[in-house]
């Protein structure tokens, strides 16, 4: 007997499975799968300004820095200002979806491609953002490779204010509506990578970025 059959057989025997109760149990299962009702959620105000403020506050609590700009056109200059203030390089790798911005005009050299180990700054957008926990939702695709938010020591993300949703459950509904099925990787990111494995002392920059900077675009 295969391991699969043996394991499932033991589970079935333990649950007294037979054709009769299988049909009923399957119906319960299908109902559970179709159920899109969220469980208990903490209160999050859904008015746009309040969502943005909550997202900003929670992101800062997770050790990210946050700037707010009025339009896409202001994004490159804000990032250039941040990199200069942090004494970081002006060369970066970015998602192809951000190729249209005028990076050169802000004095930045930005290549749109997958990330390499030597890249020090990675610039991404995000699929949406969750206000409850100050979290970015990244969905992988050829234009939005996962490693750009992972390999570089500095991760900068452009977040559209209109894409800030109250809860993770809202993010799933957006993904179902806009993407149909889930992409290979959905990565939720809340601040820079960290570890507390030595004496429970939190250190930023374990294997991923040391710092995360968010540029929220209001327009």
């Amino acid at each position, binding site marked *: 007997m295969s391991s699969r059959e043996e394991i499932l057989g033991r*589970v079935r025997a333990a649950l007294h499975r037979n054709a009769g109760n299988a049909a009923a149990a399957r119906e319960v299962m299908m109902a559970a799968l179709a*159920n899109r009702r969220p469980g208990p959620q903490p209160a999050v105000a859904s008015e746009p300004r309040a969502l943005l403020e909550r997202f900003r506050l929670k992101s800062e609590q997770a050790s990210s820095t946050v700037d707010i700009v009025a339009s896409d056109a202001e994004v490159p200059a804000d990032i250039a200002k941040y990199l200069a203030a942090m004494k970081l390089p002006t060369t970066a790798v970015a998602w192809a979806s951000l190729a249209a911005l005028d990076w050169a005009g802000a004095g930045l050299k930005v290549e749109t491609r*997958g*990330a390499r180990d030597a890249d020090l700054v990675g610039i991404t957008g995000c699929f949406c953002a969750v206000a409850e926990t100050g979290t970015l939702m990244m969905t992988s695709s050829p234009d939005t490779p996962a490693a750009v938010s992972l390999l570089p020591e500095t991760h900068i993300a452009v977040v559209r204010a209109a894409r800030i949703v109250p809860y993770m459950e809202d993010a799933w509904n957006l993904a179902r509506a806009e993407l149909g099925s889930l992409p290979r990787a959905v990565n939720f990111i*809340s601040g820079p*990578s960290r*570890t507390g494995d030595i*004496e429970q002392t939190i250190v930023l920059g*374990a294997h*991923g970025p040391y710092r995360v900077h968010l540029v929220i675009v209001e327009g």
Partner: protein
Amino acid sequence: MEIKSMRFKANSEASLANVVLQGNLKNAKGKFVTKRAEAIKEIDDFEGTRDAAAAIRNKVIDNLDLWLERFETRAQETGATVMWARDGAEVCRLVTEIARKHGVTKVTKSKSMLSEEAGLNQALEAAGIQPVETDLGEYILQVNDNEPPSHIIAPAVHKSLDDVADLFHKVHGTPRKTEIPALTREAREVLRGHFLTAEMGLSGGNFLIAETGSVALVTNEGNGRMVTTMPKVHVVITGIEKVIPTLEDLSTLMRLLPRSATGQSISNYFSILTGVKKPEEHDGPEHLYFVLVDSGRADVVGGEFHEMLRCIRCGACMNHCPVYQTIGGHAYGWVYPGPMGSVLTPLYAGIENSIDLPHAATLCNQCGVVCPVKIPLPDLLRKLREKQTEAGLRPLTERIGLRVWAWVAQRPALYGLGARFGARYLKWLAGEDKSIRLLPTAPEWTRGRDFPAPQGKTFRELYAARQKSTKGSA
């Protein structure tokens, strides 16, 4: 992993006598407890959320066969291969075969307690494949001669900064560093090279999602993302009980898991991985395997310990356990320490191999109170004690003692007399100190503390006197 739970008493005595370990444990326990208490305040309806989480886990476990088939079908539709392993030996065989098939020479690993159960690292090494632990805590232990973890969330919690400084200096051959950020940076630089060159990434799975055929992975360091993004092969090893229905259910459980584990509102990274990379994508594995492991779990389904299968491995029970806080994780002798370990080890590694574990608890129910999925841990420990007694596994003196006690307790007059005599005897033994320095019948108990002596009359005497006086005044 070798089962050393039979040596619980000797292990815990050694832990109690270890001054460095006692310091490290004391340092850690406050942080875990305080941070969790702060984090759960953010949840308006914490009890309601716990109830919802327990219901989600029950829904699957009550019909686990159907949910497993459902998950398997969905995962296969996404392009993943689903395999099944009866035990640790089969896990080792399957993973080694996968590695050989894809010409793998190095495997980077994100934390997987099941691979500890199976002793997978040793099996890979024997097959000439290099396993590299990438969770900082697990890495510290691996380079320290494959030392076992002492906590499921913070594997190296028993190690001090000095321990790690000495170890890295020795293993990496670098100047000795004394700052935690510098040590973390050193590990990052060593491990980055491994992330980029390993052909296979291996992870556990926090949850398997039946709706989408995905695995959910929770990490803070980003190593979980690395091992599932950079290598061409990704293998997920999880227990068969890890299935949950939908993404909404995942969101509910994620409100509890990081808060209960590390006191965070959410972990830094939380990945939902579905299928393999498309040809035009820049990163992600070309091959995805799920190894669904039984290792004793199927025998727990539908039985009197089935509630244990709800466990989401947060570690809150051990963080709040006065016994764990005092002796640390190694004393428990297998993969899982603390209250959840004292239930799981007898169930998965054999009740006869872990005689003392169900007794390594004060039944204070701190674990039951903090458990995010409401597992009645003290009840399960008590049931295991009953099982041991039924199976004749307890020492003869204890069995006779309990039988004598039961006989006396069923005879109220005799019991009253015995209690009166006992109380007077203990009071006499204490003399003027009102506490006993050495109990003749239980010298172990008084080795670390004094036994408070009963003062005055027994409860039954006081109750009788009170009944009399109430009647008199009526």
